[in-house]
């Protein structure tokens, strides 16, 4: 899942970026409102974490501009303003969630995961596809009851496919939502990770879960329709 973090206070931006990255999210970070808005309009994000008090352009203006341009990405507003009026104002301007500083990082993660699920209309933190089960809260994957160990990147890829189970997901989509532009290059990295996943998910005697649609992309489980 690709997340945009717009926060001007460097230590906080660094910590959030690191924490999200370690949880398997692809993270872009911006330090001011203008840069944040540019990122948000230039890429497809699964969620945006947006501070309100930003240099150059304040967070509420960024939010209003994004909504005016038709950007439907879920936005979690992160701010030191904790008044009811502030929260109401933020939500009224198009925010999907509101988290006051300081916060527990686990709560931020949980809220980001919830926003991502909402992006794919999945309310249940358990994603299921045939005999595959994914606990998105605990990041645990089981197939036919047997636990499967995945790396962060493999888990992120599987979760992205599972959120769109039955749908063809293009390599570009995967690349945009799962991988970090800064640290990984080349589209073949998607195929490499699909290969890793297949080896771990599709053991001998088990049915194929990840299907290749030549020239289109990949489908997790039986294709819908």
């Amino acid at each position, binding site marked *: 899942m690709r997340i945009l973090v717009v926060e001007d206070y460097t230590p906080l931006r660094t910590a959030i970026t690191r924490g999200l990255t370690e949880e398997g999210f692809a993270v872009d970070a911006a330090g*001011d409102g203008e840069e944040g808005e540019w990122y948000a309009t230039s890429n497809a994000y699964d969620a945006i974490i947006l501070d309100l008090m930003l240099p150059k352009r304040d967070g509420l203006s960024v939010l209003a501009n994004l909504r005016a341009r038709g950007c439907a990405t879920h936005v979690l507003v992160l701010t030191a303003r904790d008044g009811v009026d502030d929260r109401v104002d933020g939500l009224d301007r198009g925010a999907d969630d509101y988290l006051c500083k300081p916060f527990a990082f686990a709560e931020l993660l949980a809220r980001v995961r919830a926003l991502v699920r909402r992006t794919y209309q999945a309310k249940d933190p358990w994603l299921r596809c045939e005999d595959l089960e994914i606990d998105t809260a605990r990041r645990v994957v089981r197939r036919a009851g047997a636990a499967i160990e995945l790396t962060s990147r493999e888990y992120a890829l599987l979760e992205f496919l599972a959120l769109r189970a039955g749908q063809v997901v293009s390599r570009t989509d995967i690349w945009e939502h799962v991988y970090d532009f800064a640290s990984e290059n080349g589209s073949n990295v998607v195929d490499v990770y699909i290969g890793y996943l297949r080896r771990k998910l599709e053991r001998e005697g088990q049915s194929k879960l990840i299907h290749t649609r030549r020239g289109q992309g990949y489908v997790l489980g039986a294709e819908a329709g």
Partner: protein
Amino acid sequence: MSSLRRRAVAGAALTAAAALAVSGIAIHLTVRSVLTGGFDADLAARARALAGLVVVDSGHVEALAPSGSEYGAEGDVVYRIADLDGVVLARSPALSDRDLASGDMGTLESPAIRLDQLHGAAVRAATAMWTVRHDGRASRKEVRAVVTVARRTEALDTQLGRLAWLLSAVTAAVAVACGLAMSAVIRQVLVPLDRLAKRIGALDDRSLGKRLGLGAVPLELVPVVGRLDNLLARLEQAFTREKVFSAAVAHELRTPIAGLRATIDVCQARVREPAEYQRALAECEGICAQMQAMVESLLLLARLDTGQIHARTEELDLADALRACWRAYDEAARTRRLRVDWKLAEPLLMVTDPALLRVVTANLFDNATSHADEGGDIVIATSSADGIATIRVANSGCALAPEQAGKVFDRFWRGDASRGATGRHCGLGLSLCQDLATILGGNITASVQGGRFSIELSVPLRSGGIGGAAGKKTPGQAGPNSAT
């Protein structure tokens, strides 16, 4: 605790009692005078009547017995008629010859009146002397006689005593009634005061926005209510300022605390290499240092607010002091490729507090190096005129509107609401500078013109303060000195 009501009631009652007592005494004296006058006139009339009963017959003086029983043995009026030799010519049966024998004598027209004791009872006696003449055919005889009429004063004293009691009772009753009436009146008069007290009592720190208002307030309470409302307005301002400031402090601390907590949370989320822990600790230390800087600024402001900081003056050369202070910012300026134009009047000797001046100039240099645009310029200039030294620090790349210049001294105010450098630039520095400039006996102003931010600190060449070096000569302004 003294009570206005009690004092007013007691005062009114005492005043009424005193007035009534004086008038009562006057009435009593008047009545007494009238009664005793009538009493004495009666005695005089009796004396004249008795004198008419004295005759000279056959060369002898005789007194005829008065008619009626009032001079009888039981009567309360007695008389005695005697000649000048003391020979009693006639007397009441109740008297002995010696009774009423002494005393002053008046005339029949105006007998002498005296108080006396007769058989243990108080009497008033009238004594008159007159001459009894007898013109006989053979001789002419004149005899002087003295008549004394006395009457018991018991009835008169009783009457006067009753009058005194009556007047005393009336005085006491009127005083009490007056006290009660005054108490009721004062209670009624003080109703607006009680209402005002209740309204004041209902005020607390949450209702400082309310005002008592002068609408239904009696004229006498208008100054009190007016001043109280002024005090409330000042209190409201002070409370609001404190609340806003406290909220701003809490708000400012939230972001670094969030950074600290997120850094720790993320670090603890998994087992890491020692180098990663060290990096996380270093980040935490950096955040703590920023928070500490902010807290120290707040403490300094609090000490300035409570007047705990005083200037300790000594002589210094302003140019040297500025160059020494600048050293800490030189590297930052070089990193940001800032050109620095020095326009110093030197030497510029002044007597001021070097430590406080350094805090101010350090803040000005820090602001300039942080807010100037990359590759821009900073001007540091000094001058002196009329006993005032002026330090001007200006930088390019200012995005503030000219009307925002005055706001830079507001606590926690920032041009673009950024928290990017929380702790170091948390919006307290220039507020501190303003307070410190006041301590130094000067002032500080800011202006924005043509994308340049300029701040001017004016300080007396000789600040008052604790200590202070003896004055030396103050050099005039030297030519500008420019450095890059």
